[in-house]
Structure formats: structure tokens, C-alpha cells
């Protein structure tokens, strides 16, 4: 295996409470190789989103990352970055797509303006340059570039989600963190979007940290999968192995809770 792009080591995160602390992430270590799709699966409250936030350093008090933790991106410890370093790092190196990302567009700004905000802040682009880049990015996600003059409400939910993904990719990040990117969408749109992301990561070479609770979807999309239970990473394996020969009891239980389309439950 080549040198990992992202290397999370002994990550431990507590939510500091008045009486006692709650350990949300407990000694989690995993690597993501360049261009790889790594999945984190688990129930709500298992700490998967907390990890996603920590990687972009978006966690806020009362979340506290314990001292022994390291998050290395291209060999640099994200947890040591100062404010300026952090500004350069976010979006350029790690971009994030949130759960209800389609609602994170500003409703009173045209799509073009929302791209321009990012491109000007992070790359100092002019209006004309930003417009060219916007057209290029929209084409990537199958949206006609002439619609950049439209407002978010003029697009469907699936299209808005694709626009958010296009904005995310506009600065050529090396890693895209996707926290349940398609949960609010129906299956056909979900398939269209993830299929497109899969093609894009093959052509552009970015890695994806993909978070969801849908194991079936995860096996379709990911190269490797980590299963989380109560803050711990209990199993880490290739997608085929997670599906074909799950090791941990919890993984087996998780599979047994998905009804199969062909009757009965999976496994």
C-alpha cells in the first residue's frame, strides 16, 4: 500500500459534561489511501459524525480531542495547525459534504455567487475566472452551466445536493468527507449522485470518507469499510469481506437488520 493520504491514530474524543465526560470516540485508528473510498458505518450516536468533524477541525466545545490523538493528512498533523494553516487546509485539502447539504446553500444568493465566494476567498479568483470554473464544475455534476444564474429554490433536492458537491470539488481537495450525503434523497437520485462521485474520484483522484448507516449502499460504493459501535472501531476490512465474511458479532447483527429485496434479511 502506498503512503496513506489520511492517517487517523488513537483518536479519542470526549464530550465534557458537568458531572462526567462522555467518550464519543474511543481510540480509533484508520488510514485512507489516495483515491480510496473508505466507509464508516454505525448507528446514530456511535461517533462517526464526530470523527468527520474532527478531521476538518470543525468540532466545538464541549467536544475535546484527547492529547494522544493524531490526524495526519499528507504527513501533517491537522490538530497542530494554527488559524492561518487551518484556513488554507480546509476546503483545499479536505472538503466536507454535510448531511442535509442541500439546505446549506444560501437561499438568497445565485449559485454563481456561492461558487465565487469560495473561489475568491481561497484562490483569489476574479469574477470571470470564477465563472469559467463554475461552468466546468457544474458540467461535472450534470447540471447545465447556464443555470448558474438561478437561485437554490429553482433546483430539485438532488440537483442542490449535486451543486454542493460541485462547490466542494471546486478547489480540487485531496479528501472529501461525506456525512450521510444522500440520506434525504430517494434511491434513484441517490444512485445517480453516488455513481457520479465514483466516476469523478476515478478521474480526479480524490479520496472519500463516506459515512452512512446503510450497509448495502456502503458495500456498493466503498473500497474499505470500518464498523463503529459506541465510539470504537470494531471491524475494519475490505467491502467484499465486510459483506461476505463479517467478523465481529455487531457487524453480523447490523447485516441481519436489513430486509432483503428478495425476501428475508441479508445474510
Amino acid at each position, binding site marked *: 500500500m502506498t503512503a496513506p493520504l489520511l492517517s487517523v491514530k488513537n483518536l479519542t474524543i470526549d464530550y465534557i459534561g458537568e458531572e462526567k465526560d462522555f467518550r464519543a470516540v474511543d481510540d480509533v485508528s484508520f488510514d485512507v489511501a489516495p483515491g480510496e473510498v473508505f466507509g464508516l458505518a454505525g448507528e446514530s450516536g456511535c461517533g462517526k459524525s464526530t470523527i468527520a468533524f474532527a478531521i476538518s477541525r470543525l468540532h466545538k466545545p464541549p467536544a475535546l480531542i484527547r492529547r494522544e490523538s493524531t490526524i495526519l493528512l499528507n504527513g501533517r498533523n491537522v490538530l497542530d495547525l494554527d488559524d492561518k494553516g487551518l484556513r488554507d487546509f480546509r476546503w483545499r485539502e479536505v472538503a466536507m459534504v454535510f448531511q442535509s447539504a442541500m439546505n446549506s446553500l444560501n437561499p438568497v444568493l445565485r449559485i454563481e455567487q456561492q461558487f465565487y465566494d469560495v473561489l475568491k476567498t481561497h484562490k483569489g479568483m476574479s469574477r470571470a475566472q470564477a465563472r469559467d470554473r463554475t461552468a466546468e464544475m457544474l458540467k461535472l455534476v*450534470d447540471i447545465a452551466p447556464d443555470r448558474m444564474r438561478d437561485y437554490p429554490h429553482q433546483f430539485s433536492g438532488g440537483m442542490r445536493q449535486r451543486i454542493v458537491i460541485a462547490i466542494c470539488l471546486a478547489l480540487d481537495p485531496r479528501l472529501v468527507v461525506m456525512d450521510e450525503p444522500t440520506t434525504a434523497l430517494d*434511491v434513484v437520485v441517490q444512485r445517480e449522485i453516488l455513481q457520479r462521485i465514483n466516476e469523478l474520484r476515478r478521474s480526479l483522484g480524490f479520496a472519500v470518507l463516506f459515512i452512512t448507516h*446503510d*450497509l*448495502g449502499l456502503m458495500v456498493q460504493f466503498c473500497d474499505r469499510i470500518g464498523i463503529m459501535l459506541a465510539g470504537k472501531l470494531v471491524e475494519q476490512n475490505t467491502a467484499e469481506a465486510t459483506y461476505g465474511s463479517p467478523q465481529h458479532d455487531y457487524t453480523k447483527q447490523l447485516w*441481519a437488520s436489513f*430486509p432483503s429485496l428478495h425476501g428475508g434479511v441479508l445474510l
Partner: protein
Amino acid sequence: MTGQPTPILALDRVTKTFGHGPGAVHAARSISFSLHAGRALALVGESGSGKTTCARMAMREYMPTEGKILFKGEPVDRASPTETARYRRAVQMIFQDPFASLNPAHTIAYHLKRPLLLHRPDIKRAEIDATVRALLQQVKLDPDIVTPKYPHELSGGQRQRVNIARALAAKPEVIVADEPTSMLDVSVRLGVLNLLSEMKQQMKLGLLYITHDIATARYVAEDIAVMYAGQIVEWGNVGKVIDNPAHPYTKLLLSAVPDPDIRFDDPSVRLRPEDAEEIRRKSALTQDKIVEVDTDHFVRAA
């Protein structure tokens, strides 16, 4: 459907239009389905396909623009106030969001006593507490622990069980469950679905199960109706429709269901967005012709 007893609840060519003129939205177009005692019908479709509009018409929350709703063979629009009250008791709903559908200011006991006091004059005051306990036991919650609690002290799955108990308290004949598990964790989802199936069989309920997850539809229901853009495009026996889909939209929907045996990297299974767009465009047109594919399996065609 001939040869079957009169359904408890039936929608007969029901149409619902919101607004008027060129901006009118046809949320439901010529919808017909029936609910039978001890059987579940799954209404499947994407968001915006009109599933919830159908549920609301079944709950008589919306009056249909056209068509009839029949309760035990009688049209409900001519019902007297007494009959309407009977309908309100007999048709109960379970909502999608277990966090929003219980009153945060009241205990679980209160939530279950209210329907008993309102809808069940046959139960004496002294027996109410015992009935609340029995209801909670029925949904596999421990009455000693749960009754004094407030909704925020329960998990999503527990709350959804309370919602089921609340619906059962009115001794319904039909339960309309609108995405009852879509906000629950995967590990508790099956438990709630199993509970619904059990209740359906034991109490001979007619269940209308609304979902976007076609795999759970197969798990819960005997019959299925696939909706798109306000029309039921294909319906019939759940196994027949899923194993042998005839309508292009049903095929599209089934091909997109997450299946761990299919990898996105495999070019032969690639879903072409332009094909999907074409199917959507065609399926949105009014399709009047009904074709019988098989016994108990029907499809609409242009």
C-alpha cells in the same frame, strides 16, 4: 378485486388537486386501492410522489377533489357526525417523526389514557390504568419503567412503540403508518416492523404502510402499490411486483435499491441519468390504460 370480502377502507378513483389554473399540482390522480382486515398494503414511491397525500385522504384530513372514499362499502362524504366519530376511532395513524408526534409536556401514561377516555367508553375508569399497562406490554415496553416517563427520556424506537400503543388504544380497524421507521436506527427498525406485522395479524388490522424503502415493503406487506407523480403505476402481490416488475419506473426504482451484490465500479450496471430522466418524463404523463400482467399484478401503460 372480486371474490374478496368488502374492504374496510377503499379509495375509488380518488384525485386530489392543489391550487388551480396552470399552477395546479395534481398530487393524486385516479388513485384506487383497498385495505383488508389482516393485510398490509405498502405504498411505495419517492418523495413528492403523492404517498402522504393518499395517507391524508385516508385519514380524512384532505377531502378528495374527485372520487370516493368507502368505509366498509359506504361513501364517507355522506357520513353523519356519529359515523364520522366512528371513523375517527377506527382509522388511526402512526407518524414518521417519533420525536415530534408525542407531546413533550405530558407523560407516556397521559398519551395512552387520552385515546382510552375519548374513544373507549366501554372501559371503566377504574380499568384504565390496567389497560394502559396492557397496551405497553403489547408493544413490548415495561409499563413500570415507561408510564411515568416523558417522551424525551425515551429513545426513538421506544417512542415509536408508544405511538403504536397510542394508535392501538383506540381499538382501530385500520392503521395508516407513514414512514414509521425512516427516522429510526437500522438496528431497531426491524423490531418496530415486526411489531406492526404482529399487531396486524393478531388484531386483524388493515395496514397502510407508506415507505420509500421497497425492501421493507416486501418485509411487511402482502400487497404493494408503486406511486410516481401522483399515479399508482404498478400494483399487486408484493412478490410478483418486485420479482417481475413491468412498469419502467418500477424497474428503475428496483435497479437503484442499494444492493451489496452490485458494485458501482461494474460498468454493466451503470444507471444512465439520461435513461432515468426519460423514464421519469414518460411516467409523469397520465397513463389511463391498465394491463393485467398476471393474476393480482397490474400495471399502467400510456
